[in-house]
């Protein structure tokens, strides 16, 4: 519940979300999406939701990023926008 921490992480979240959608390389977009998941897990741990943070760290930053990278390897890696 440290509000300074909170404001900084929230600003980073918006920046990371915009970057994940603007990068043209799909592998890079998946990695930045993994960074977004880690940041939001940190935010929830700071707000006192430890079970939610644990689940997000395991599922969002772990399995979700890995299956997205697996799909990118099976299909194309460049995107037009």
């Amino acid at each position, binding site marked *: *519940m440290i509000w300074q921490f909170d404001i900084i992480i929230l600003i980073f979240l918006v920046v990371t979300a915009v970057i994940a959608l603007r990068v043209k390389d799909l592998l890079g977009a998946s990695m930045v*999406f993994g960074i977004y998941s880690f940041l*939001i897990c940190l935010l929830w741990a700071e707000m*006192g*939701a430890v079970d939610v943070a644990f689940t997000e760290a395991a*599922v969002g930053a772990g399995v979700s990023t890995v*299956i*997205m990278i697996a799909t990118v390897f099976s299909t194309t890696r460049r*995107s037009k*926008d």
Partner: protein
Amino acid sequence: MDIIIASFLEDSIVPKFNYWIYVILMMIGLYAMITKNNLIKKLIGMAIFQTAIILLYVSVGVKADANIPIISHHGEKDHVEHAQNENLDSASEGSSHHGSKKEYHVIDKNKFANPLPHVLMLTAIVVGVSTLGLALAISQKVHGSFGTLEEDEILDQLRPGGHD
């Protein structure tokens, strides 16, 4: 000067800042789902949308100066008391009110964060990853069938002029 800025931040921006960022993130996700051409970018937008909703719910359940929603028992004395009281409980057929000898002190509900949004959001996260997995499988099949992941090229192939 620092104190003035800090108090200005704390009184007028901190109370609602989580909610403004949640709206901004949700709109970023929605914009990506509507306007992006690439299917994988649309899915990233969907995932950002889902985590923004979860941010709203968890922010609602926050209490200032509250602890995590796990009741902790410090030290060995409490464990020994637990064991003795459990023997007594099971001997007397499990009735849970014993008057003054109980080890459950009254719990102040303002000391713990609200556990109900956390429970609902656990389900939401897991359903989100299931949806993402299935959507990625379908996009792999689309790529195998059309050769591309861009939406406008797929629509061109689907129109009566192209093949398929």
